């Protein structure tokens, strides 16, 4: 088990990479390298303009700023001041001015889903600077699920296989357990009340491909929850941000990781939710999420996120979207996968 507290060594040694700042922010990941580099390199007008959280700008902000300049000029400062200067979110969170919302991530840190989750945490903290929230990420290995203390987490994000996901569902029975990597149809059929599948099911991907082949018989096609060249509905912006932050293209697991955090943090910011059960209920019944795929997204009663899928050809190039226009109605997202727990005789 790996828990992160203020006294721990920095968890994200790669972020920021060596050389972009005097040291990494402790506790948890706060900012990706790009934003950090910009802030460190050009401490200008923007910082006093960006009011953290409250309606009135903090008068101390400008002072911090000037100090920062001195720091860049090579003036040695105490360790604490260093921390406050280079990790402004930390300073605010440490002062208790913000409400901290904690996410647990279960899975492999080398996978793209983890990068997506980190992108989501960064964007949530960006919003949090204006709304008074802060978000942190706490990472656990799949083998440690039964040792994790559920207390204190708002939601659990799982990038692991179906068995581990189900185990997490039982361990965190009052929490939303967000699946960002397992495509198994069986998980959707069981309709476990706290498992929410952000990644598309196998059947959704198969249905999308079948719809495409009706239009283009004999073509080689692959369906996915995301494509790194997708540009519509501001997908271009998300792809650009992700690539800039992590130097890899965003795939469907990274998208699902990003989406899992974003839908949760957005709900927390809007509704002021602090209890995991209230959040779970909100996600299941009242979600209105912009996943940068053009739809107002929400979950089916199977726990599956309704979503647009993307079709690529043999060369991996983006060729279309599903629901496939001309085969089904463009907004018929329930033509993909198992539409409901209560659908009789549905196979797959």
């Amino acid at each position: 088990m790996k828990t992160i507290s203020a006294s721990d060594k920095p968890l994200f040694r790669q972020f920021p990479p060596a050389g972009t700042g005097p040291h990494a922010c402790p506790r948890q990941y706060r900012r990706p390298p790009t934003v950090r580099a910009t802030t460190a390199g050009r401490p200008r007008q923007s910082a006093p303009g960006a009011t953290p959280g409250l309606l009135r700008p903090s008068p101390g902000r400008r002072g911090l700023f000037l100090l920062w300049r001195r720091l860049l000029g090579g003036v040695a400062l105490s360790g604490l001041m260093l921390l406050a200067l280079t990790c402004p979110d930390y300073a605010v969170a440490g002062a208790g001015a913000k409400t901290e919302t904690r996410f647990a991530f279960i899975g492999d840190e080398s996978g793209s889903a983890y990068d997506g989750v980190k992108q989501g945490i960064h964007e949530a903290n960006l919003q949090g600077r204006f709304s008074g929230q802060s978000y942190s990420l706490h990472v656990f290995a799949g083998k440690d699920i039964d040792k994790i203390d559920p207390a204190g987490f708002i939601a659990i994000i799982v990038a692991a296989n179906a068995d581990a996901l189900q185990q997490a569902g039982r361990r965190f029975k009052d929490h939303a357990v967000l699946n960002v990597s397992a495509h198994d149809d069986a998980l959707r059929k069981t309709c476990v009340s706290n498992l929410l599948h952000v990644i598309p099911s196998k059947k959704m991907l198969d249905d999308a491909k079948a719809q495409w082949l009706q239009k283009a018989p004999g073509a080689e096609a692959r369906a996915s929850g995301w494509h790194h060249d997708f540009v519509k509905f501001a997908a271009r912006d998300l792809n650009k941000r992700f690539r800039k932050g992590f130097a890899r293209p965003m795939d469907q697991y990274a998208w699902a990781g990003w989406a899992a955090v974003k839908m949760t943090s957005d709900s927390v910011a809007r509704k002021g939710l602090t209890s995991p059960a209230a959040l779970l209920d909100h996600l299941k019944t009242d979600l209105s999420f912009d996943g940068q795929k053009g739809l107002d997204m929400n979950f089916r009663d199977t726990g599956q996120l309704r979503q647009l899928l993307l079709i690529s050809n043999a060369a991996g190039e983006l060729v279309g979207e599903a629901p496939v226009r001309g085969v089904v109605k463009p907004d018929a997202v329930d033509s993909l996968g198992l539409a409901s727990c209560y659908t009789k005789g549905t196979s797959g």
Partner: protein
Amino acid sequence: MKHFIIAILLAGCFQVAQAASNRIFVTNERSNDITVIDGSSLEVEKTIKVGDRPRGIGISPDGAELYVAVSEDNAIAVIDLGSLELLRKFEAGSDPETFAVHPDGNIYISNEDDAKASVFDPATGRQLAEIQVGLEPEGVAISPDGKHVIVTSESTNMLHVIQVPEHTIIANILVGARPRAAVFNNSGDLAYATSEISGEVKKIDMTSYEVIAVKKIADEKAKPKDVILSKDETKLYVAGGRANQIIVLDADTMELIKGIPVGKRVWGLAMSRDGKRVFTTNGVSGTVSVIDTEDDEVIKTITVGKFPWGVVIDD
């Protein structure tokens, strides 16, 4: 000769406060040009090339210059409203899209790629300020007294209220998913904002920064984009995007008054100074619809360039 020179100088002076030409200017995102429409005949008068992907468009407070955000060139093009000649271009940050012209003449731009808004003096092309906002900033609205600017950030789902001239953020208002555009009322104590993905129009009290009313557009296809308020402040005109209509709401009750069918994928809106006409850009159709606001009917549809985006009236 002396008198002649004086006459020329005088003419020059008068040109500063130019008589309005009553022309309508439309940016065409895909044909990389501007369509000039004669305001009386409603016929296309001319097409001006400005550079790649022109989008946001605005007019200087003195009516002398037309500004166009040329997105692919990362620049604002300045066109003389008398001669319709391109005067100059200035760098305006990465991918300038939407902007608004302040009563003092400065331009407030949202820079989508950089999560910031920037302020430029169009006379010198100099950047005066930069304000960090949320992700994917889009719509920019300026209060009639010039004291407040709203910037919408589409991915952070907020309206950021910026105080002028300090250029500090004084409020952040969470709204529906993908806030797109905003407009102030005449006294500046109310604002209306559209949210594209949640399909909503929100009314905001600009003294308390509270959302005081929400209208969910019933048409599922409606992705509300631009929004303007009628001159008498009784009606809101909302560009319905894929719904292919203008949604007219009662500005007080926020109830639907009517839908006005226009062209496909309607985005941009502009109203004449006298409030009698509304012009819409219909992206996919490549047309501009002219609405008579008396009975809210389309009186003419004008074919313009490819993917018309923004519209402004020199009146």
